């Protein structure tokens, strides 16, 4: 089963890279893009076919390593 983990800076943390990308889009004329947050994306191939188990495992490794809880939060999606 495949889990997808999205890691981004927490809302309380300023993201200078995201800000710079938003500014670049504005200079390209995309005024409709109000803000950008940059993050990381992980695909995990897991040795289970249980969605609940896969979700729990993905969250555990995100907590332990993929995200730094001081500055980042994450979201897990499981591929059916």
């Amino acid at each position, binding site marked *: 089963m495949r889990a997808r983990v999205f890691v981004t800076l927490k809302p309380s943390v300023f993201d*200078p*890279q995201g800000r710079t990308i938003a500014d670049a889009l504005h200079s390209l004329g995309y005024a409709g893009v109000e803000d950008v947050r940059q993050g990381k994306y992980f695909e995990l191939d897991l040795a289970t076919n249980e969605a609940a188990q896969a979700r729990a495992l993905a969250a555990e490794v995100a907590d332990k390593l993929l995200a730094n809880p*001081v*500055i980042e939060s994450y979201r897990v999606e499981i591929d059916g």
Partner: protein
Amino acid sequence: MKFAIVTFPGSNCDQDAYHAARDVLGEEAEYLWHKDTDLKGADVIVLPGGFAHGDYLRCGAMARFSPIMREVQRFAARGGPVLGICNGFQVLLEAGLLPGAMLRNQSLKFRCEHVHIRVEQIDTPFTAACRKDQVLKIPIAHGEGNYFAEPDVIARLERNRQVVFRYTTPDGEVADAANPNGSAAAIAGLCSEARNVVGLMPHPERACESVLGSADGLVIFESVVQSLKSGGLVARA
């Protein structure tokens, strides 16, 4: 007195730290490879600057899985003096030996220049030979040195007097223009609650001889020698 300098794959300031300890200070120094499991009788551990494990995932994130870090953790827990410089500071943060995390510099630029830092606390093994509020001119070289912690954590650090160095003007004044990376509370360096673990972004080992533009960093290394010789610190590997 024996300094042990940990070399991770990707460390690149280990030789500078070794040179400062051995050639400038005249103390014993030895390298520890990250796969070592023995601190070889070290009195002081230095985690040097560089890009440990390529800074994969996050700066310092992979280094805590190196076998030597288990021994460094034990040494720190016994009260042994540990100094993390630049990437070494990032490793200490990721390993949970110091609180907080590093973000990309606010300017998004890699900053490589001399800065001024003010010594806020002199009751740590690495600042014992400093004067309180002494201003040191020391180089930085980093892209991710923008210190972040939640406001309640910053308040706790201030209350416990764990902010050891702050970026300032040459006159020792905190100012936005003197903060090279956007660090919260102009924090350049911290100590642990027990005060024996110190991390800082500037490179004192690159400022130990006047030929390098400043010898202000030497006092950091002299401090730990003085602390150990005066018997204030007892841990030995």
